[in-house]
């Protein structure tokens, strides 16, 4: 029962992340919504798997996957943001401030 609730919450968060991925205007904002919602949603689904199996071998695998996914997604988001800026993708039209421009030159 708890596992079904956790999985439902996870899929809802993933849905919001995908809507953000399609709707938001530029790369950095898409990265924000996709990383946050995708990571927490999938972590929630894995926690549902952990509750479903209990602490046997399959449950432990789900438990290991949670920190791996968490750190992997955050480091990948950071690398993608930096790579996109160095590649020359501009900030969107609505942006109000850019301190990074002076530091890169």
């Amino acid at each position: 029962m708890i596992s079904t609730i956790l999985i439902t919450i996870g899929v809802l968060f993933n849905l919001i992340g995908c809507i953000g991925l399609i709707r938001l205007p530029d790369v950095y904002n898409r990265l924000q919504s996709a990383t946050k919602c995708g990571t927490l949603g999938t972590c929630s689904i894995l926690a549902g798997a952990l509750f479903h199996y209990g602490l046997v071998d399959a449950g432990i695998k789900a438990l290991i996957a949670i920190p791996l996914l968490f750190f992997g997604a955050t480091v990948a988001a950071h690398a993608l943001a930096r790579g996109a800026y160095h590649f020359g993708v501009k900030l969107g039209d609505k942006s109000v401030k850019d301190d990074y421009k002076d530091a890169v030159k």
Partner: protein
Amino acid sequence: MRYLALFILTFLFWLLLTFDLSVANLVAGGAAALITSLLFAKYFLDSVYKFLQPHRYFWLLVYLVILIWECIKANIDVAYRVLHPAMPIKPGIVKVKLDLQSDFARAMLANSITMTPGTIAVDIIDDYLYVHWIYVSTNDPEEYGRKISGRFEKYIKKTFE
């Protein structure tokens, strides 16, 4: 010392992943952990004695609870901004002064900033952290540090430094 710490960590990871205590499994895991620690220990942390200080684990627990709470808040914040018809965003890149010294603590701070409401860490140059913020709410550079990294810096200092 570094080799020993990395060996124990990788061997523990292997045991959790396979979940099997037969002799063949232990020997295979030991060999794999030995090769890994011989190859990669020179990239591992410098100060492994910190693993043996118990008060760090207590602060780690406090830090994890705060991190998970901020994570959930971040998701609700993103959901509000995405589902709102007018999309109330005002993005920009700001720079924040860092207080932490060690590399590992800085990496952890950047990770937790990526997971907090509306911010993504982009780069670290010298002592400044560059952060992409989805809603720049003030124009005062003094306020940035307090609003973005002030929640975590205290606990990360106690846990990892």
